[in-house]
């Protein structure tokens, strides 16, 4: 199972207002991605909470369609 890069982009962009999302397909198999999300929604939150927000936004595909995800959050 895999998820399209565009689909992932759509999920993340719609989850975080005012966000800039960069996605790298690490293995070229639609299964291992690195995502970078810059959003003002991360302001004042710990890294752990920021990552939890990203995990939650992808709850439906993480661990199933999506095997490995490396996350970087940036406060905008």
């Amino acid at each position: 199972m895999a998820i399209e890069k565009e689909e992932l982009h759509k999920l993340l962009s719609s989850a975080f207002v005012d966000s800039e999302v960069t996605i790298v397909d690490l293995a070229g198999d639609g299964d291992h991605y690195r995502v970078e999300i810059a959003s003002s929604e991360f302001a004042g939150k710990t890294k752990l909470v920021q990552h939890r927000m990203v995990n939650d936004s992808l709850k439906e595909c993480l661990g199933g369609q999506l095997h490995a995800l490396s996350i970087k959050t940036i406060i905008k």
Partner: protein
Amino acid sequence: MSEIFEKIRKEIESNDVVLFMKGTAESPMCGFSSVVCQILDRLNVKYKDINILEGPELRQGIKDFTDWPTIPQLYFKGEFIGGCDIVKEMYESGELESLFKN
């Protein structure tokens, strides 16, 4: 409280640093787990490694316990610190080293 939650709780209460990982500290079975092991080694931190591949109950149990979907998971003094990305960022910023020093 399920049996597996009790087991996890005991581990993180009786060991200062616990890493739930795929494989063991000596032979990690996943790149992300391996990165965290290398960081802890570099900081000379002694930790208890727990191989979640040993049983499906533990593998799912730790995800539910922490409410975190991925492995590895690092605990310090009973508190969840983060997964591979967070640990890496904290290491690079020096935050992780000061956490262990205190």
